[in-house]
């Protein structure tokens, strides 16, 4: 973190000392998430960290003081599964809704060079297990600004293309020159999807695997291969003389270095299926999607498995271009009705969950999506937790992120009004102690970018 600050100094030449100037927000309501709400208190931020927080905190002499009267300070929001910053993943404005069964996290239309069709698992189809989001991320992505305007300061960014798409990274939503400054955790695990990347139907000669059962068997084969690869490598490392050297396989290396897997599961059938699959693969898993988490049996499966889930906030909707006279099947309508109750249901059942953007990226869409979960029974506190401390815990970074506590990273959202209300104004956010003020009018849906401008008394131009 010090390096980061130094880097900032060099870059912008601002008036920071070795110990940079502090920012103190006083007289504000502080929602710490980890502890009780401080009705009127002060947060002091220095060097990108929370130096102090409490009712009676002395404000350092060099601090830039923000009068927080009438304001509320929250921990910065964390998107538990994001593609913000990943090249080629910006979804086209309107979210597709309604469709059942399809696992979301929009696959990009971006063309990848056509590879010859795979003839089997040996060709490692749609596998980029070795790539890390941290190495790919583009700090200039407009969605980063946009998300920040919605109060997001951190995102678990994942490559999402392919059966083994690659490794996710936890990043702070800075818009800097160096993507490296953003990275909190370079590898969070492996993202697994069960959809063919970039379309290209299966069928005859279309490349393996084309059907779901082929995809599942492919993933199973990869884990068998990885286990075998490890055995052979270990044996070779111990005594290479007289032994043929094992062939280096980056696909398996990527799988072996991933400490957990993300598995797609929307329908209750898929939740059941993926829980069994993760157990079979003996991999610690997080399940994402969870559209039918509201079902009693989904709850049972998740509880029995002591599972952790990421709930997509792209709630299913009736397709916009649908014939208004056409009647959808009962089940589909039921899912549209009930899906937004999933967070409340899982909360009640004591299942660990976080919420994620799933392609939403405008402040308006994100705010509405969270609000919908609240309107469907999730308490405001639990919604906040599902977007702060819970994702931090899920990814094992609760010691530095997710709540307003002394020593944690200074990621804060300062609002006038209750967070997630549509009339609430986000005054500014701090990311690693850097202040960003949302542009007065957040761009409406469809148009993106230009939502925040760094400014303020201690604004760090990045």
């Amino acid at each position: 973190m010090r390096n980061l600050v130094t880097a900032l100094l060099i870059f912008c030449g601002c008036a920071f000392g070795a110990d940079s100037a502090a920012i103190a927000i006083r007289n504000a309501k502080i929602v710490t998430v980890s502890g009780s709400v401080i009705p009127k208190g002060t947060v002091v931020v220095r060097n990108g960290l929370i130096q102090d927080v409490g009712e009676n905190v002395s404000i350092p002499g060099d601090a830039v003081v923000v009068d927080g009267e009438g304001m509320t300070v929250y921990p910065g929001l964390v998107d538990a599964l994001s593609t913000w910053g990943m090249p080629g993943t910006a979804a086209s404005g309107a979210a597709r809704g309604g469709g059942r069964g399809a696992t979301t996290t929009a696959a990009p239309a971006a063309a990848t060079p056509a590879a010859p069709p795979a003839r089997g698992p040996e060709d490692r189809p749609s596998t980029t297990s070795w790539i890390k989001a941290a190495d790919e991320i583009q700090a200039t992505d407009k969605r980063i600004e946009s998300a920040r305007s919605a109060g997001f300061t951190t995102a678990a960014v994942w490559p999402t293309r392919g059966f083994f798409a690659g490794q996710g990274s936890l990043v702070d939503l800075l818009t800097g020159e160096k993507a490296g400054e953003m990275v909190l955790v370079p590898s969070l695990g492996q993202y697994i999807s069960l959809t063919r990347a970039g379309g290209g139907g299966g069928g005859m000669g279309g490349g393996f695997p084309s059907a779901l059962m082929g995809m599942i068997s492919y993933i199973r084969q990869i884990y068998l291969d990885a286990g075998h690869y490890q055995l052979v490598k270990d044996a070779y490392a111990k005594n290479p003389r007289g032994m043929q050297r094992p062939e280096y396989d980056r696909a398996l290396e990527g799988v072996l270095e991933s400490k957990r897997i993300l598995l797609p599961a929307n329908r209750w059938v898929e939740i059941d299926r993926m829980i069994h699959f993760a157990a079979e693969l003996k991999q610690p898993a997080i399940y994402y999607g969870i559209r039918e988490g509201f079902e009693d049996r989904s709850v049972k499966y998740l509880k029995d498995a002591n599972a952790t889930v990421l709930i997509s906030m792209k709630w299913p909707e009736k397709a916009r271009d649908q014939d208004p006279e056409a009647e959808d099947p009962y089940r589909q309508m039921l899912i549209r009705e009930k899906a937004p109750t999933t967070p409340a249901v899982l909360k009640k059942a004591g299942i660990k969950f976080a919420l994620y953007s799933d392609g939403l990226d405008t402040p308006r869409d994100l705010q509405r999506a969270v609000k919908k979960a609240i309107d469907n029974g999730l308490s405001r506190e639990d919604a906040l937790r599902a977007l702060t401390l819970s994702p931090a815990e899920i990814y094992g970074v609760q010691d530095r992120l997710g709540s307003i506590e002394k020593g944690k990273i200074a990621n804060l959202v300062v609002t006038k009004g209750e967070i997630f209300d549509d009339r609430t104004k986000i005054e500014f956010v701090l990311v690693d102690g850097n202040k960003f003020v949302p542009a007065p009018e957040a761009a409406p849906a469809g148009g993106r970018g230009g939502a925040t401008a760094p400014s303020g008394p201690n604004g760090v131009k990045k």
Partner: protein
Amino acid sequence: MKRLFLMGLMALAAVAQVTVIENATIMSEGAKGTFKGSIVVKDGKIIEVGDKVMVPPGATVIDAQGQFLIPGIIDCHSHIAVDGGVNEGSVSVSSMANIRDVINPEDIAIYRALAGGVTAANILHGSANAIGGQTLVLKMRWGQDAEGMIFQGATPGIKFALGENPKRAGSPQGGRGAPATNARYPATRMGVEDVIREAFNEAKAYKATWDAYDAQVAKGQHPIPPRKDLKLEPLKEVLEGKRFVHAHCYRADEILMLIRVADDYGFKIKTFQHVLEGYKVAKEMAAHGAGGSTFSDWWAYKAEAFDAIPYNAAVMTKKGVVSSLNSDDAELMRRLNTEAAKAMKYGGLTREEALALVTINPAKQLGVDNRVGSIEVGKDADIVIYDKDPLSNYAKVQKVWIDGTKYFDRDSDVSARPSKELEKKKLADQEKPATPATRRPQ
């Protein structure tokens, strides 16, 4: 919630344990033939069958006066309840794909099959390639999860396919409006045979590697195990007789071809599926020990189906082939009873022989005849009540039990329809005003 409630009721029914069905015309498909009598079901099994039975105290008694009781119908060839495609058609040998991984217990076709008296079905991979995916037998336990659908103890299978489908090689140029697809080997019937032989050459070598490893381990050595290959594992199991081969086929020549291949490699074909020209080579099939699972009267939908005759099932039966009639189709699956009846008209089978085509015979073909397929003491209580003669067009399924648990009841189904309609209407009405309002300003 409602569904869960229903499941709860089913669970209660299972706890109640003893059910007696009295005064039915029982078409047992077992040694007792057809007779008027009663059965006692306890803990999911048939424990007594006879003209008169003792009604244990506390038993649920159902008077089936004037109705017909038959063993649950078994469909030897179905593709229902599968998620994400039935064909891993990208490669010519897709034995790594497994139906077990993609069971979809939500498929409404399960309930419809149940309403047609089907209690078990062999769920197969498609016929896009010479060696397809792994198959398994499900019981139509509507409302259960994927694991709960599986017919535990039934030998798993693998789908082979001969003839026109597996030799569709793709068209690199596209044409006639179809997009270009990559070429795939094989393009001829010769190639199909070659693909199967090559796969078994590989499987034999693979088996030898593992056998050598197992021998070393048995001697107390600690070698690095060979790589486990999910494509070859099921073929190794076929060679070891642990997995049944169900081969899609039409023509006599390809049937004989596969018998030769199987003989060369030392494995058995459990069933020939569709097998429209089975009547031409029934003796050879019988000698190999292969069953034949065919259509009643469906043909000429492609060149290789031109020589089909409606007498096929009857001829194969008379030549000693264990024969069955299958659906291959979710809709046809609901009325396999009348498919069976056609074999009385075409081929002159007796009532028992005809009904056997969809009960005890498919049970034999799937290796589960010790468990299901007839109404006999000790068998699973997979039973169906029809209001009329099940070999009649006018017969309707009234009730279906699987393992002694009632999974379908026509009366309950009919009486629940208005409330389901209402629920649906409520949801539709809720959505109506919301739709214009949620539209974003452009």
